[in-house]
């Protein structure tokens, strides 16, 4: 009976994961289409010169990574919470934690190797988004799992006393309770997407057809021109302001930053 239950759990988990991946695969061409259409439209209006395009592409990248990471991370978290127990859970949590510490250079190199020979992939914002999604998925799963497990037992007990089924309790009681922590984790994810330059630079190689804030900052600093340095400073200031804003709004006192590259 226990064995059958475990097998059922693994099966449900696998089906959910595969469904999520299938959905992701279906969505990728749509991302391509939407991104290209938006860029073309803005170019035709003449509103995309210079730095405007960088900001727009950064926004596109952030949205794409969030759309890829959040649903999959949530599904994996729920699967871990409901179906995985004991030593397997500990191993899985260790794996997530370990994966999220893999150096960005290494992931960028693997990405570069995978897309080598394909010009369209080199020029695609989706490739960048996919790399960041793979890179940050364990980080997000780890954070969501911690948030869900941090909900005190008394909420589960109260939900059970109201005759709720396990999944209903999860949806109606536990997830809303964990939502502030999950929102904070999402903002940290946005920060990390904005901060990440190394992986993207290594992924694309010398040619960067799509500049986003972090890589543009790198390029401008590399040029060594005075006006470029001023612009780089302005971009850095923008990112610091974003971080300050999110810190005040969402982060509790004394909480450590999870940004890979600290700005101060």
């Amino acid at each position, binding site marked *: 009976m226990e064995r059958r239950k475990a097998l059922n759990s693994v099966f449900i988990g696998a089906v959910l994961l595969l469904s999520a991946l299938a959905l992701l695969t279906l969505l990728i061409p749509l991302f391509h289409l939407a991104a290209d259409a938006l860029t073309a439209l803005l170019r035709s209006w003449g509103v995309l010169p210079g730095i405007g395009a960088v900001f727009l592409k950064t926004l596109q990248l952030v949205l794409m990574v969030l759309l890829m990471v959040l649903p999959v991370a949530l599904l994996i978290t729920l699967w871990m919470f409901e179906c995985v127990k004991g030593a397997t859970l500990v191993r899985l949590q260790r794996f997530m934690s370990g994966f999220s510490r893999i150096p960005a250079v290494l992931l960028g190199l693997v990405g570069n190797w995978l897309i080598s020979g394909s010009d369209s992939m080199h020029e695609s914002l989706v490739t960048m988004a996919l790399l960041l999604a793979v890179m940050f998925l364990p980080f997000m799963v780890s954070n969501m799992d911690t948030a869900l497990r941090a909900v005190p037992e008394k909420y589960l007990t*109260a939900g*059970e*006393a*109201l*005759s*709720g089924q396990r999944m209903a309790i999860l949806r*109606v009681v536990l997830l*809303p309770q964990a939502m502030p922590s999950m929102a904070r984790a999402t903002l940290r994810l946005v920060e990390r997407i904005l901060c990440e330059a190394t992986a993207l630079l290594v992924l694309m190689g010398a040619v960067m057809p799509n500049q986003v804030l972090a890589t543009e900052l790198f390029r401008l600093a590399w040029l060594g021109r005075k006006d470029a340095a001023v612009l780089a400073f302005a971009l850095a200031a923008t990112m610091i302001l974003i971080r300050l804003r999110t810190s005040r709004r969402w982060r509790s006192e004394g909480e450590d930053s999870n940004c890979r590259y600290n700005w101060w």
Partner: protein
Amino acid sequence: MSIQLVVEDLNASFDDKVVLHDVAVTAEKGHVLALMGKTGCGKSTFLRVINRMAEQRGAVVSGRIMLDNNSIFMQEPNEIRRKVGMVFTEPVLFAGTILRNITAGLRLQGITGKQALEERAEETLRRMEIYGEFRDLLYTDAALLTRAQAQLICIARALALRPGLLLLDEPTRLLDAMTSSKIEDILFNLREDCTMVMAVHSPQMAGRIAEETAMMEDGTILEWGRTSDLFYHPKHRHTEQFISSKFA
């Protein structure tokens, strides 16, 4: 509709440690049964056995527990909990508005219609005669409530499922005397609609609202009967000491 509760030969244990033995007690329809006893004597476990939550935490239970002559062990735990509501010592409010809290039980059953939920919340608060206090606060964040208000909302949340039996685990222990008195009044007026089994931390509370009172000691019921009989003619020394507040 209130439900009659009959318990006979009830035994419960966790990991071979006996926590309830030979418990036998009855709560008549529309009555309040108070459970008195020292901390750790098994009052809370007894309540959790009735709505089958103890089993979920690994308790091994045997004996007879009948709700209107139907054994609880012949029904699904969730089916039991739809008929048997529970209020805990510490008010546990869920994230969201007061309305979402009162109707949490309904939403857990899959009822999501806004109008239906609002109507049930209003009906429940009116039954408790506290609609006036919460009418304008229904869409307020529940986290802003005081502990006393939170406990009232927890009682409303349990009552919104229209249970026939309500289990209360020392619902006023963490509240001041004035608020306790208000909650006691509310519970007293609700007896017509549902039978109540209440673990109490003070004999005074049992004396004020319970028709029947049981004295528990080390996982068993020393004696039980009409509250006035138990208070004026206790058969056990422990009961007498508890009533005279030597233990309480």
